């Protein structure tokens, strides 16, 4: 695809490089395809949290409670959640 400046998802921080990384393939979206539903709307906090917990656990074998803390801390730094969590 055309040269696209890499930005990160405003919900989970995942780098978004290709159109497929963005919600609905729309490069103007603030969020990634993993953090949004089939209409491109941001998923609920608990759903995004669960998915990030799973990512920590599967990638590094981190204990579930530790992974939950890591994911909560991570999401609290992101624009979508920093005011509410």
């Amino acid at each position, binding site marked *: 695809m055309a040269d696209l400046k*890499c930005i*990160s998802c405003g919900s989970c*921080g995942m*780098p978004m*490089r290709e159109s497929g990384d963005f919600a609905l393939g729309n490069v103007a979206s603030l969020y990634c395809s993993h953090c949004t539903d089939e209409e491109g709307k941001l998923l609920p906090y608990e759903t995004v949290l669960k998915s*990030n917990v799973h*990512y*920590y*656990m*599967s*990638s*590094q*074998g*981190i204990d579930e409670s530790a992974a939950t*803390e*890591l*994911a909560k*801390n*991570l999401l*609290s*730094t992101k624009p979508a959640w920093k005011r509410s969590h």
Partner: protein
Amino acid sequence: MLKVQTRKEKKEQTRLKLVDSGMSMFAERGFLSTTMTEIASNVSVAHGTVFLHFPKREDLIVAVLDEFGTRLADAFEEASRKKESLRGVLEAHLSVLKTYEAFYARIVREEAHLPSKLQSLFLMLHAGVSQKIYLASEKELEKGNIRKFPRHLLFNTWISLVHYYISHKELFSPQGSVIEEKGSEILNHFMNLVRK
């Protein structure tokens, strides 16, 4: 024609200067020994201005690590894009770590003393690397080239080796880059461990 900077652009430029300054000073002197004042004066920004951008020290550290994470992830993506083999992906990982070795080493050494948000960001970077290694390893498995390992152990074994050398750089490579000097040895050893 000269473009007149808007107030917003100037503000963003100052913010980036502070983040860059933080990255180089943390790399040089460590997170624990570098003050906000030093980071600001390094780029001739007034002491009070730093707090307009980053009210707490932790906010600046998070911004620096966020920026570092983006640069590292971009560089790793670029370096590993055409690498399909496990060795190729690991070589790409080492090449990126070599580029950012000084700052990365500080995180590895001081991670336990850093705010928990930073550990979250750092371990999320690992998750991205782990994912690439896993995808490459699956292809190698299909070809019968390597033995099967649980996904997390494959990554944890690799990163443990790399971090051990990075955190003890003075012992292995006191004069220069430990990745430059020991990277091939680490990589060859790891490949010998996983090869069928």
